[in-house]
């Protein structure tokens, strides 16, 4: 067993780190305050290839592996979790639906511009009445000649404020419940799509996360992914992989907070010495780093399993469950280490603590993760 990154992965990590430090870190606080994702940053991310990391070069992707993608997620999330989720929803929710279930023609037409850095994607499954229980989906797609007419409302659609391509899940047969769900590829420009305002949130405030209404949206049958009734499977498959990204995002948020705390405790003086000289500080940080390292190894294990086409879903659920809990615990400890300053918006650990909470909720709550893990254990 080898826990070392390859030479390629090390150089990739260096690119992600430098990009995050230079391009994202200086504007992360402002983006959080303005609750708006910088579109200039989107363009820079696209140029560096960040929107197509684990996709084949045959389709215009970057040709790297899932593990490399987790390195990118960690590095960007260290300085800005909003960038993490922006990349994640595109890379590990939207694109996999087309990559794994799309026809060759659909891959050429829809996947290529997403992974070669021309378009941004989003993923519309959650509805006001359908969260963890996806069988609550009410959005309908009724056949009309060679087209489908989609009606319904999706909520918390990340990236929807500026995305070009929408993967939308809708019932083609209401009587079958989840088995009557199908997946469609929509364009933002299609008549009948209305994207609402960015929903006000506790954390990841720079990310775009809106309600999207679909009113008599006419979608050609050529945009149906897979077959009618495959939608639920497509959504669950995408979400299973997405959790590796959220695990990596959690590791990044936590590591970023530790890095900030490390700088602070070496400078802050109380009782005549810098506070890193106190054993409480040393032990707290030792505990934090140990947990983050454990979470990172779980992320790498899940990513490696996915790269090797093994059954990664329970491993992904575990890395997300553990990683998200670590992110919450570690950011709370780091805020405590910074004391009153940690509670101030001037210091990035405050944002990290707010951002961490969502990792226990989206792409499957911690409770849903326990359902998956215990199911795989056959408890």
């Amino acid at each position, binding site marked *: 067993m080898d826990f070392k990154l390859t030479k*390629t992965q090390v*150089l990739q990590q260096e690119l992600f780190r430098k990009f995050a430090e230079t391009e994202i870190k200086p504007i992360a606080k402002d983006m959080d305050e303005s609750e708006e994702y910088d579109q200039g940053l989107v363009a820079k991310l696209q140029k*560096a290839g*960040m929107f*197509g990391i684990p996709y084949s070069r045959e389709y215009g992707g*970057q*040709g*790297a592996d899932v593990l490399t993608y987790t390195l*990118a997620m960690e590095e960007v999330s260290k300085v800005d979790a909003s960038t993490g989720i922006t990349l994640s929803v595109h890379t590990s929710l939207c694109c996999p639906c087309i990559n794994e279930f799309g026809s060759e023609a659909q891959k050429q037409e829809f996947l290529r511009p997403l992974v070669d850095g021309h378009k941004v994607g989003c993923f519309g499954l959650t509805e006001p009445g359908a969260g963890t229980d996806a069988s609550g989906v009410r959005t309908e797609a009724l056949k009309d000649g060679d087209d489908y007419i989609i009606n319904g409302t999706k909520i918390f659609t990340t990236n929807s404020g500026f995305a070009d391509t929408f993967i939308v899940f809708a019932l083609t047969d209401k009587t079958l419940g989840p088995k009557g769900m199908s997946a469609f590829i929509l364009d933002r420009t299609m008549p009948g799509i209305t994207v609402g305002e960015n929903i006000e949130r506790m954390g990841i405030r720079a990310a775009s996360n809106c309600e999207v209404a679909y009113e008599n949206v006419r979608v050609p049958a050529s945009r149906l992914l897979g077959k009618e009734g495959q939608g639920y499977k497509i959504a669950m498959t995408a979400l299973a992989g997405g959790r590796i990204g959220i695990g990596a995002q959690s590791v990044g948020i936590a590591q970023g907070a530790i890095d900030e705390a490390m700088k602070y405790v070496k400078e802050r003086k109380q009782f005549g010495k810098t506070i890193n000289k106190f054993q409480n500080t040393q032990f707290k940080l030792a505990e934090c780093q140990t947990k983050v390292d454990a979470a990172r190894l779980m992320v790498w294990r899940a990513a490696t399993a996915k790269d090797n086409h093994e059954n990664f879903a329970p491993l992904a659920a575990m890395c997300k469950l553990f990683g998200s809990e670590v992110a919450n615990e570690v950011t709370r400890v780091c805020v405590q280490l910074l004391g009153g300053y940690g509670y101030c918006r001037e210091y990035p650990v405050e944002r990290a603590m707010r951002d961490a909470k969502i990792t226990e909720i989206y792409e499957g709550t911690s409770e849903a993760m326990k359902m998956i893990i215990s199911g795989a254990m056959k408890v």
Partner: protein
Amino acid sequence: MKIVVCIKQVPDTVEVKIDPKTGTLIRDGVPSIINHDDKTGIEAALQLKEQLGGTVTVESMGPPQADIALREALAMGCDEAYLVSAREFGGSDTYATSGILAAALKKIGYDLIITGRQAIDGDTAQVAPQIGEKLQVPQVSYVEEVQEATEEYVVVKRQFEDGYHIIKIKTPCLLTAIAELATPRYMSVKGIVEAYEKEVKTLGFEDLKAELELDMIGLKGSPTNVYQSFTKEVKGAGTILKDLSAEEAVQAIIDKLEAKFII
């Protein structure tokens, strides 16, 4: 156009620390990077390639570890890379180094050579001009802008202390880049994947022997030797004289030196 960029791998620090006992650089724990001005040179070369077509080749002389610097250059978009490396080349000063790099350039072939102005570790700015002399090609140092480029000539702006020169220079030629010339692009994810699929070719002693002055390479063949290296001691703040003309400044310095009985 075949553009060749000479790069150097240097320690990533502005405060190079020297081991007081051995007088050599402490490299432990200091990550290595492509020298800043050299990276500017790579960017300038890539922009010229985008404009004129052709290829960009990078060459670096150094130990096998310099491989990663060359991979980074490939990941930025360079087409091919050469590592000039041999035991016989170790300990070379600027004269010996420029001779070896010039020999490698003859082997590789070039229409335009771009280098950084100087490296942040040695700070000599001597290697590139010596390469130009040894290859007997025209050269312009301190290039801050390429105003026009064709296969036959380039028009560049050379930075000067109190102004600039616009120079038209025939190819093949050599330019040395300063930071103002270009802002280096990032590597791309795909570029890194491809950089490790390409081969970094090594040019060793045997490959270059025919082109080398054999008694002018390595530590033995270097006309200069470092006698001693030491970290500069900080001796209090200096005096800053502002807003003086050149003549007034000279007079002020002379007055100071006379006051201290130095002259």
